């Protein structure tokens, strides 16, 4: 049980989240990929705090900020999806490309 194990867990979660964020067609599933990536950030921040500098609370503050960011991103994401659905009647990323080209 050392730093590398936790960082490997964080890397695995990040990669799975990245796969979801890149490949999913539905906006809600894409957001679940983003949540997994921030999950990875939580594990990495906590592992660095415990194994590198437990004397200072910097790592804990990072984890706290990441948890808050997760909540905020979810709230804003769902508000944006709702607004997008109301005006354009889409909930797939492929059809929401009006800013393209």
């Amino acid at each position, binding site marked *: *049980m050392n*730093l*590398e*194990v936790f*960082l*490997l*867990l964080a*890397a*695995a*979660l*990040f*990669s*799975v989240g*990245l*796969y979801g964020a*890149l*490949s*999913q*067609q*539905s906006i*809600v*599933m894409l*957001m*679940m*990929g983003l949540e*997994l990536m921030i*999950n990875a950030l*939580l*594990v990495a921040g*906590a*592992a660095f*705090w*415990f*194994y*590198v*500098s*437990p*004397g*200072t*609370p*910097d790592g*804990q*503050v990072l*984890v*706290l*900020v990441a*948890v*808050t960011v997760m*909540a*905020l991103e*979810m*709230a*804003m994401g*769902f*508000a944006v999806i*709702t*607004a997008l659905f*109301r005006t354009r009647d889409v*909930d*797939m990323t492929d059809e929401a490309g009006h800013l393209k080209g």
Partner: protein
Amino acid sequence: METVAVWVLAVAAVGFGVAVFVVDSMARATFALLASFLCVGVELLLLDLDYLGVLVILMMIMEMLIMAVFMIMYMMNPGGLMPMTMVHNNRGALAISIGVFTALAAGIFLTPWPPRRGTVPADPTFSVGQAIMGPKMLVMMVIGIAILATMIASVVLATDRGRYDRPSHREDGAK
């Protein structure tokens, strides 16, 4: 004993994370994500981060339930009654994510990590509380303003009233 717990929880967290994108039912996908978060929360408890671990468990249960409400609202196969995969660029995404994982793993094992500085304080909760009220007060203020901005922005975005519409009437005493 703790090492076994850490490994089991790690494998479970990644397994549930993969399950999010594999299962057909959207409700099950949301709760697989919740299970992954709960495993991470217990891992934080094992790292002596009592408050943050319980906080992750608490907040993630609430958030994933709200996400479940939105999933059922917007997704087309909430019950998983028909097999369905809705992906685009599947092979490209797989290649990129596997590539990122190998790059990160190589970096993890090849980087010389610094030695441990200091020891775990007697009460990590107290130290983080003191930090965000003292030296890191800027973080607290920025988070507070960000939360306020998000609350206002999400209500403005999600309400179906246009700029010039009158507020809807109260009908027989109930909104």
